[in-house]
């Protein structure tokens, strides 16, 4: 499956809306096992994305992703800034040649792993990105699956990120970064439906 500018724009618009709507949900999740600001940070990022896109309409998917990356890197502030920022920056570089959606997401996932020096099962956003990228590659990503990937983070013990300071006590809570990543992939599915 390939992604074009229209679909990618719709994807980001939907994601931005979801971040704004769910600011308090993300803050609550982060209060349980982090520093309580994931919703506020992502909401700030969402507003910066909107502003940047309104200022200059991107000419192609690569430029769109770059605009998103810079807005996030400059405005998000928490750990999610460099993580989402790197994902979109790497996808932007790849999108100059590549239009295959699964490949782009896989490149974004690799960027998050590099930046965070982390992998699956550490209770981070990678636990949504990686299985979502694999499901996209095999053509069977659904909203139900995204929810399933997200819910799988609940029983994990965090070994990366702020929640890792809680060790065993991080169990029983959803990972906030996985929740915002679930919004990202739900938005993507809606945008690709047309």
């Amino acid at each position, binding site marked *: 499956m390939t992604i074009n500018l229209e679909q990618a724009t719709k994807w980001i618009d939907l994601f931005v809306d979801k971040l704004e709507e769910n600011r308090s949900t993300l803050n609550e999740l982060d209060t349980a096992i982090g*520093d309580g*600001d994931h919703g506020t*940070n992502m909401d700030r990022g969402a507003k910066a994305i909107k502003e940047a896109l309104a200022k200059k309409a991107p000419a192609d998917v690569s430029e769109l992703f770059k605009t998103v990356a810079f807005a996030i*890197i*400059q*405005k998000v*502030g*928490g*750990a999610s*800034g*460099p*993580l989402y*920022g*790197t994902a979109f920056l790497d996808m932007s570089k790849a999108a100059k040649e590549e239009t295959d959606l699964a490949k782009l997401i896989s490149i974004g996932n690799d960027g998050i792993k590099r*930046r*965070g020096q982390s992998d699956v099962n550490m209770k981070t956003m990678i636990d949504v990105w990686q299985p979502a990228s694999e499901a996209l590659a095999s053509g069977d990503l659904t909203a139900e699956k995204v929810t399933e990937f997200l819910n799988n983070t609940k029983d994990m013990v965090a070994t990366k*990120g*702020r929640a890792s300071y809680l060790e065993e006590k991080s169990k029983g809570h959803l990972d906030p970064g996985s929740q915002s990543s679930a919004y990202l992939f739900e938005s993507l599915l809606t945008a690709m439906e047309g």
Partner: protein
Amino acid sequence: MKYGIVILSHSPKIAEGVKDLISQAAPSISITYAGGTDENEIGSSLEKIQTACEQNKGEEILAFYDLGSSKMNLEMYMEMTDLTVHKYDVALVEGAYTAATLAEIEAPLENIETSLKKLLIK
């Protein structure tokens, strides 16, 4: 000046405080810092990191940070800049103090790094 020191912290007060502390041990070393977000809240800012590194007068920069996103933003900056930046995964206060003291007496990087190895915590 061969080496300058950059302090990165989630808290503007910690960043400034560490600079104050280590300046005493290294009055002739260029020490700059990036603390908190652009709004001076708790967090980290790529822009502040960039400014702190660019304003530093050292030919090469020795960078010390506190928590995860300072590190990630620093690494992101290191991928973007032409400046030579060395990043140390050590205890912030002790590491910066050690490096500052040794840089002040113009110790070679090798000696500074040997001393820093004992302070690795990340």
